[in-house]
């Protein structure tokens, strides 16, 4: 029967006779051993010693990230600032609530470690700022994590199932997006009273998931049509398995970037809210609370400048890191940024 396709046994247009590149017919019972030498594409290069260092997606991403100078600077900045916040009880010379009425409104000095001076009731501003970083960090990370998870689930469900469910979820998303965040936040905080940092965080997360939901939905919409999703379906995978094992990893890039940027926006919003007096209740210091306190003392510049500067620094660093991640996690981008 082989004559029909490949009568001369060597130069065939019809590719059915099993031969290896050299034209040697392959034994019909070709075992694994003979199969090993078959593919001339990949393994002959390895055999010839032309080894290419194989890098995973993540190591490419890492490489690209570390070539991005601003991102690295931002990362270092964040490590220092957040490190101080996390280890506040080790770094801060005083407790944030330690009051010293004999030493109020002292300008910055190195004496007694009052690097950022003292406030109206004699508490050490440096310590308060450090503890404030911790609060802001907690708010920022909580909001980013919770909103990412919610956004991921909403986006995944909407994008994967489509139809009516998608329509409903996306209209809810649109609705949340059109709400004036600050006005609602003010109203809600006024309603439930000045909350703890966790109530504020939950409210913020309730607004922030929309961006991630839209991004994730877009990715799911395009990927659910891919052949490998069909292949996964054909191998018996259920919806949940396809969504979370097969498609979700593809969305991690944009989710990480959005999540990172959300940390910055959440910190900023919390600061704005606290500054307006609707956020976190003193004495828990957050950077926004501190700036708010500071405005009672217009002459004592250190009480506003230092916490304000820290807010700016944190958000700037977060954005640099987010930018770097965006470039690093873009799989289209093989080029390494100078």
């Amino acid at each position, binding site marked *: *029967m*082989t*004559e*029909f*396709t*490949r*009568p*001369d046994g060597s130069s*065939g*247009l*019809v*590719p*059915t*006779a*099993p*031969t*290896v*590149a050299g034209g040697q017919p*392959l034994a019909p*019972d*070709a075992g*694994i051993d003979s*199969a*090993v030498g*078959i*593919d*001339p*594409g*990949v*393994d002959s290069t390895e055999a010839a010693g032309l080894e290419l260092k*194989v890098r*995973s*997606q993540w190591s490419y991403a890492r490489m690209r990230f570390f070539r991005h100078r601003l991102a690295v600077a931002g990362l270092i900045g964040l490590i220092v600032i957040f490190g101080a916040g996390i280890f506040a009880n080790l770094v801060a010379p005083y407790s944030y609530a330690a009051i010293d009425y004999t030493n109020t409104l002292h300008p910055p000095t190195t004496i007694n470690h009052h690097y950022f001076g003292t406030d109206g009731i004699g508490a050490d501003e440096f310590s308060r700022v450090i503890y404030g970083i911790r609060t802001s960090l907690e708010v920022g990370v909580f909001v980013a994590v919770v909103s990412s998870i919610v956004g991921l689930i909403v986006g995944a469900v909407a994008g994967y199932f489509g139809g009516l469910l998608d329509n409903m979820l996306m209209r809810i998303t649109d609705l949340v997006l059109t709400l004036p965040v600050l006005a609602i936040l003010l109203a809600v905080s006024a309603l439930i009273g000045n909350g703890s940092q966790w109530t504020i965080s939950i409210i913020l997360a309730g607004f922030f998931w929309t961006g991630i939901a839209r991004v994730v939905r877009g990715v799911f919409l395009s990927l659910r049509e*891919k*052949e*490998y999703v*069909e*292949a*996964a*379906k*054909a*191998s*018996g*995978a*259920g919806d949940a*398995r396809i969504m979370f*094992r*097969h498609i979700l*990893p*593809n969305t991690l890039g944009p989710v990480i970037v959005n999540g990172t940027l959300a940390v910055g926006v959440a910190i900023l919003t919390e600061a704005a809210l606290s500054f307006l007096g609707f956020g976190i209740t003193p004495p828990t210091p957050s950077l926004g609370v501190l700036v708010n306190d500071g405005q009672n003392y217009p002459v004592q510049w250190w009480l506003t400048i230092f916490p304000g500067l820290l807010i700016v620094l944190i958000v700037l660093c977060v954005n640099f890191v987010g930018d770097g991640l965006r470039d690093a996690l873009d*799989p289209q981008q093989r080029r390494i940024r100078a």
Partner: protein
Amino acid sequence: MPEPILSIQDLAVEFRTEDGIVHAVDGVSYELYPGEILGIVGESGSGKSVSTLALLGLIPMPPGRIVSGTAMFKGRDLLRLKKKELRKVRGNEVAMVFQDPMTSLNPVLTVGRQLGEAIKTHYPDTKDAAVKQRVIELLTLVGVPNPATRYTQYPHEFSGGMRQRAMIAMGIANSPSLLIADEPTTALDVTIQAQVLEVLKRVQQETDAATILITHDLGIVAEMCDRVLVMYAGHIVESGTVEAIFRSPRHPYTIGLMNSLPKLTEDEEWLEPITGAPPSLINLPPGCPFHPRCFLARERCRQETPPLAPVEGSAHQSACHFSEELIGRKSKFSEAVA
């Protein structure tokens, strides 16, 4: 005659589109016996893929709809299984190898992980080490060199042929009793095609899975299959053993297909195409769907759809009113078979 493992009766599938209803598969019946390789050939749009995708419930619904039919597989009707039961069948007892290995593997998961998924989907309690061992066994079986290294690599580090081998490995991961290969070599270049077919054949012999091989390449059919179905415009127009069909085709369409192939033993100035174009599946011509392009066509063909009826023994069937006139008519390849 042994019991068929798969018995399809009167399968009809249609798609609703804006232009009208597309009758992709219209009254298809066939049987598949244990351990045999059945080829399904036909042009693009002849319904060969759709008729098998329907078995696994992989037709997007809507717009698709299974109008009628039964598909008995091991005593159960695949077309009437609940979604959950069908999922247990997919990738387990019935597995599928898709056409394009470049897009059928998830780019963000390692090949080992994806093959492991295929196993874990059906046997979630399998220990990771056992899954890994099985995957490496599978990769070895399909002739992937250095399976232990390949296990940890991503699809982009595989060549096309290697990916298709990985796809075949995925298909046989759970030792299916029915393997459907949907144009497994169409996306590969000719030398790799031969190797992949060799792998497929060896795998088929080792697992003894009944195999449906969908292709538009008659050469592959001649090389690989035991029996063959020729499809045209959603209908089976001829079926029989490979030998019978190549020796004495009894349907004008089959003859046309063969005559349009180049013969390598002779110098041919011109190929002999089938005149005309495939009909629109929305608006099929009345009577025999092939009559507008048929050299035998006469009035009866325009009015009466010919049934698939036995010609010379029950194994060889043709759907042509005038198949008897084709007795003795040689195809281009008659001598090659003899």
